């Protein structure tokens, strides 16, 4: 009933707008806002239910002692003060930063190289598609696949290494190798996808800029540093922001391979949070760790956007 009675309203409003010229813009603005809200509404539900409420609750829990069974008790800043004296927290931050540095460093350089190859050389859709294949395999499967191939005693990689007469390598088992190995596995999985993003950015660079450069006799290296990189910057920044944040949150590969070991050599921050929450039932402490990670990631994203001018283009 209500819908039927309300239906004639918008046309009536419409005729009013047509009457005078000045209120038209206001009327249309409000009408757009309503319409916009209708379209945003479904996404807002998802945002509020799955992001906003859990985030606020997580921040609340970080000030409590909470074991999931039972009620949280407010303990103020105690979780935060103990985190700063927690050796394992600082260790996990160091390990995570090491991982991010190796992972992002190699991934970005390799992806850029692949994107250039896709742009200039490999024009076949098949080859371009094949680059994306590792990304289509689930993270856990990729991790397990490499876990078995790199196994010390039975893995095929170590079999090949020992045929060549070199000593076997405990890829996941030794403290020196664990993080580089995990980083390499994830580079392998993500480089094709990252390359695809950069490739899209390369295609957006107008061809005539290159033509002018070649008329001026610029060398390929000079063209790359003088034209490709500056014009690619907004895309590169976006890619970096997204991959760095993703990289900080590495968890699944660690969880199914080393589970934080050997000793604490691959206990990345997400692994430590998981351990505190789900194996030691210390959800308050884990929430406080998560809040700290959240703040760090927000800062990293902000700095990258600010200093690399990710929201401006040199094309204008």
């Amino acid at each position, binding site marked *: 009933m209500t819908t039927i009675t309300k239906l004639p309203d918008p046309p009536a409003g419409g005729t009013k707008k047509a009457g005078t010229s000045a209120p038209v813009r206001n009327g249309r603005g409000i009408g757009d806002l309503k319409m916009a809200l209708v379209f945003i509404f479904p996404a807002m539900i998802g945002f509020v239910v799955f992001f906003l409420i859990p985030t606020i609750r997580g921040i609340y829990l970080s000030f409590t002692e909470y074991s999931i069974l039972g009620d949280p008790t407010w303990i103020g800043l105690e979780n935060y003060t103990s985190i700063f004296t927690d050796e394992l927290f600082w260790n996990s931050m160091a390990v995570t930063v090491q991982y991010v540095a190796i992972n992002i460093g190699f991934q970005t350089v390799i992806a850029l190289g692949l994107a250039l190859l896709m742009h200039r050389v490999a024009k076949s859709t098949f080859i371009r598609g094949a680059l994306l294949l590792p990304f289509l395999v689930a993270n856990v499967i990729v991790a397990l696949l490499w876990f078995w191939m790199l196994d010390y005693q039975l*893995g095929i990689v170590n079999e090949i290494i020992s045929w060549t007469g070199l000593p076997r390598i405990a890829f996941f088992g030794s403290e020196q190798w664990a993080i580089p190995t995990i980083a390499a596995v994830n580079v392998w999985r993500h480089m094709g996808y990252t390359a695809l993003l950069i490739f899209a950015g390369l295609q957006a660079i107008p061809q005539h800029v290159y033509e002018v450069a070649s008329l001026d006799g610029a060398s390929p290296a000079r063209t790359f540093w003088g034209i490709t990189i500056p014009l690619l910057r907004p895309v590169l920044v976006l890619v970096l922001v997204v991959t760095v944040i993703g990289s900080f949150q590495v968890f699944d590969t660690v969880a199914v391979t080393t589970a934080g070991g050997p000793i604490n050599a691959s206990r990345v921050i997400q692994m430590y949070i998981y351990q505190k929450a789900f*194996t030691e039932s210390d959800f308050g402490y884990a929430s406080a760790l998560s809040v700290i990670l959240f703040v760090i990631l927000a800062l990293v994203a902000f700095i990258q956007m600010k200093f690399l001018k990710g929201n401006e283009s040199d094309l204008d």
Partner: protein
Amino acid sequence: MKKSIGAVAAAAAIALSLSACGGSAPASTEAKGEINYWLWDANQLPAYQQCADDFTKANPDIKVKVTQRGWDDYWTTLTNGFVAGTAPDVFTNHLAKYPEFATKKQLLALDDAVKNDKLDLEIYNKGLTDLWVTEDGKRYGLPKDWDTIALFYNKKLIADAGYTEEQLKGLDWNPQDGGSYEKAIAHLTVDKNGKRGDEAGFDKNNVAVYGLGLENSGGGDGQTQWSFLSATLGWTHTDKNPWGKEFNYDDPKFQETIAWWSGLADKGYMPKLETTVGASVADNFGAGKAAINTNGSWMIGQYTSYKGVETGIAPTPKGPDGKRASMFNGLADSIWAGTKNPAASVKWVEYLSSTACQDVVASKAVVFPAISTSSEKAAKAFADKGIDVSAFTTHVKDETTFLFPIADNSAKVTGIMKPAMDAVLSGKKPASSLSQANDQVNALFK
């Protein structure tokens, strides 16, 4: 959400006490509907499915839905179920986990059931029922099975080394030179050039077959790794068991055991810890990379099923006083406090812990049931399959078992002890560094 759990739990408790007041006969009138039952070991699923079918045949009003989940999933899903109100009515419980569940009031005490249905607790192997009584005297589980530790060995590698199986069954050990146990392990180790571990020119950096396999550092309990050695010296994990309040990782007896054990890796007789991340210790044994593995009786099925490997089982070595030792661990079935069907759940748990079900489990030859007569049947069922399990049962017969350490904070103890033990075993720190870890552990109980 939490309130509703409390309400359900309260209702369940009331319902149970009411049914209990009415005596055992009227209780059965309410016992109907479907109950959910969880376990983690896929090898045991067929046995318990048959128990469930038999149970429903005898009690047509009660249906039992059996669900199996892998070990890691099992505990997170269970905890989430407690919070969300979807946990199973009855589930297989572990000694390392149940103290916390009991403290958090997630388990239904079974004292009334034991009293009213006049359950005989003497039918179980000695000690198993006591494991499930908390400090306040409440019983939270009825025992279903037990396990001990033994040496699995590769018959061919033993014969190649000139050892007889009889010799392997009579090894002795001490923390100073490792006794005949270390001699056997050394002799069974073979390097790439075919030199044995106790021969001159043995290349410890290129070992083809290790004398002893390594699973992991064993964390805080060392159930299958070192506890059967340290216990022969009279060492115990805690000041008392169950419900110890102080751990003894600073004891020289413990530290010299660990020092001897990690020394095997330096000598090349056992793989280095860093090489154990990956394929399981049992799979490496199956691939012929180790001659001896120490493992629990729940692994019998896996160790005897590797193609091309003939596996024998020997008891753990005797200690300096001539006695063996093995950790004695037992599982039990517990009822979730939030069950909507406590009467039927109690009935099912009673059936699970009865000879009717445990004989079925015994006949499948997968584990040793908790009831003494049923575990004898299981030993016979293993023998019928051609597997001699006396290495495991001898500990029970000679009463050389000691109980799995039951204490609060077990997850946190593991969180401290695993990295600490890893550090010692990988040679990063001396065994004396475990005293510091011990301080951290004991601080949890202050």
